[in-house]
């Protein structure tokens, strides 16, 4: 299936909900959304990937690009993902050390708030 994107605000955090396949064809749309959110002053992002069916290195590149942008404003970008097939690509590339990966949106928000 194609990529579906949605986002909503929860406190000072913007939650981005991603559904479908993030690949070389669809990743530019996610990139545009992340850039747009940062440009509008959202520096704490949580990307909910629970409904992502496919993720490739292009998608990883876009997520790291988003992380770079929020960090430039002392912000954060955390991920919500419990799917083994998606987590595997983060492990292969060593990106589990770069992103905070959480089991739920609430957990991601709580972890950041407690820092």
């Amino acid at each position: 299936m194609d990529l579906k994107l949605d986002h909503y605000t929860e406190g000072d955090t913007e939650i981005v909900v991603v559904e479908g396949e993030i690949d070389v064809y669809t990743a530019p749309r996610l990139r545009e959304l992340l850039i747009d959110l940062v440009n509008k002053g959202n520096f704490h992002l949580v990307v909910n990937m629970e409904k992502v069916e496919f993720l490739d290195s292009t998608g990883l590149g876009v997520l790291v690009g988003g992380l770079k942008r929020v960090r430039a404003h002392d912000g954060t970008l955390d991920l919500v993902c419990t799917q083994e097939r998606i987590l595997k690509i983060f492990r292969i590339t060593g990106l589990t050390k770069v992103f905070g990966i959480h089991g739920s949106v609430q957990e991601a928000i709580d972890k950041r708030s407690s820092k």
Partner: protein
Amino acid sequence: MATITLTISALPAHVRTARLMAATVARRAGIAASAIDEIRLAVGEACSRAVAAHKLHCPTQPIQLQLIDGSGPDPATDPSTDASNPMPGSTGSATRRFEVVVSDRAPAKDTEETPHRLEPLLDGLFLDGEDTPPGGISGFSPGLGLAVITGLADEVSIEPEESGTVVRMSWPLHADQTQNPSSN
């Protein structure tokens, strides 16, 4: 032994088609369900890399994908090969493999990054926004893609030539079906 060849234009939208076809053929060849995801991802990475290289060097040229199902009858009738050595390069005589070959026509120079250059994770490896070269695909990093392929395929060879790069990936067929492939 059966081969399916797919030729795609160098467009990102076709990478998904290549992935789906690879997964379908792999499933039919008898690859374990858990390894289908790996094949889908590795083939997608190889095709994404090829599409990105073509976009920069030869956007009108097609990219070729070969899916070779080694589970069929022996190609023993092929007079050009030694029947006692059915799979060149294979280690065991009974090893049959599902092989995927992605061939592009972009000159390897300037488009390749080895999968070993992963250290500067947050320092320029990832192409994003203003880092993207003219004609390039935003978010795509050839080095990361190759690293993923290397991590997923059971055997990989990447042959960069002046006339293009050939990425060969293969997975064993009829291996120990009870193994747990998610152990890494």
